[in-house]
């Protein structure tokens, strides 16, 4: 019973942190289950993918209702992220666990560095779009033009497709949502406003995770006794995080998170090297 409650609490913590910092819960859940509970990495990745679907479905519902997410763009890109996840889900069963652990440690370091370098959005509005792009009326000529949203034009679609493919691969291998790749791809390379990119990424990660989750499910790698409490915890944590977000100093939280990520990366790296 104690372990069930600890899993629930771990899920809540991952959900709160994730929603406050704009990350899926996977980056915390995989280390919690492997380093904290000693579960095999593949089982942890499978449980994490379930949590990613929870986060995606819950938040995408809100973002779509408010028309913040770009459904058309998201659907085109998720075709590529789902394809990447299909490949990743199959490759994950061929790679030795210590290789996956090493890759996860590298991902943790990447996320920690991204957190340090991230700039806070301006207080008066987070939806930033280049003025030159926003000054153009959405066109209807090419296929890419049909993916434009109100006030912005989408460009460099092939780059977005490539980024999404890679994000799907990473997601399936390591049990994370892949938003850490998708959001910069859409925002920096494709001209999508940050707020729209974040919301669209949240919607996309559900399908990305499902593409590989079905492989884990049908191969008997999803343990419902572990996935259940964790998923409920993540759902509750995400709701708590959304409510307390206005009262939390995210800068302090971010630095705390960087320390936790760095320590976890060290632990995971040691495990990968068999130390």
């Amino acid at each position, binding site marked *: 019973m104690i372990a069930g409650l600890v899993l629930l609490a771990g899920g809540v913590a991952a959900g709160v942190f994730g929603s406050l910092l704009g990350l899926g819960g996977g980056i915390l859940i995989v280390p919690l289950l492997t380093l904290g509970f000693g579960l095999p990495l593949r089982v942890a990745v499978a449980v994490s993918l379930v949590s990613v679907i929870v986060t995606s479905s819950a938040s995408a519902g809100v973002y779509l209702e408010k028309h913040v997410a770009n459904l058309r763009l998201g659907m085109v890109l998720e075709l590529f992220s789902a394809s990447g996840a299909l490949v990743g889900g199959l490759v994950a069963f061929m790679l030795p666990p210590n290789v996956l652990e090493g890759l996860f440690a590298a991902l943790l370091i990447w996320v920690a560095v991204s957190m340090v370098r991230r700039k806070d959005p301006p207080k008066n509005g987070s939806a930033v779009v280049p003025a030159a792009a926003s000054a153009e009326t959405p066109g209807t000529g090419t296929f890419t033009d049909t993916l434009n949203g109100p006030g912005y034009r989408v460009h460099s679609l092939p780059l977005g497709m490539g980024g999404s493919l890679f994000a799907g691969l990473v997601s399936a291998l390591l049990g994370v949502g892949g938003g850490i790749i998708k959001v910069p791809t859409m925002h920096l390379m494709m001209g999508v406003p940050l707020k729209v990119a974040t919301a669209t990424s949240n919607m996309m990660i559900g399908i990305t995770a499902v593409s590989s989750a079905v492989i884990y*499910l049908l191969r*008997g790698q999803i343990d419902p006794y572990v996935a*259940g409490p964790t998923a409920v915890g993540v759902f509750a944590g995400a709701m708590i995080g959304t409510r307390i977000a206005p009262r939390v100093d995210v800068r302090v939280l971010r630095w705390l998170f960087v320390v936790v990520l760095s320590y976890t990366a060290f632990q995971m790296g040691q495990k990968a090297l068999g130390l």
Partner: protein
Amino acid sequence: MSFSPIPSTTPAQETAARLESLAARLLTWGTRVSMALILVGVLGMLASGVDPITAISPPFSLAAIPGQIAALEPAGFLWAGLIVLVVLPLGRVVVSGAGFLAAGDRRLALVSALVILVIAISIIAALGLEG
């Protein structure tokens, strides 16, 4: 840099907006149903003293789930909730694809169909590996 939204929208964006509302309702209610089922399973699991770390994971069998639920077994509720959860994003794609098709947007309808195809290949590949 400044953000100045342009109020004008294209017919494609209006179609997308309608579908977004529909997909949003599906995801919101589906997540609630899924979480309710999983919560019942977790409470049953805690009440019956199952240790999630040391207990043997109940095998996944779609056909066995109704019987497990009828017998009030926690595993049945957990599996049912997890299945609803996994199906949800797919439901969103199907609903959106059907909507795009109804609106005459064949390209986006085709994209939706291809996404479903990728998931279908995942299932076939997983079953093939299992066999």
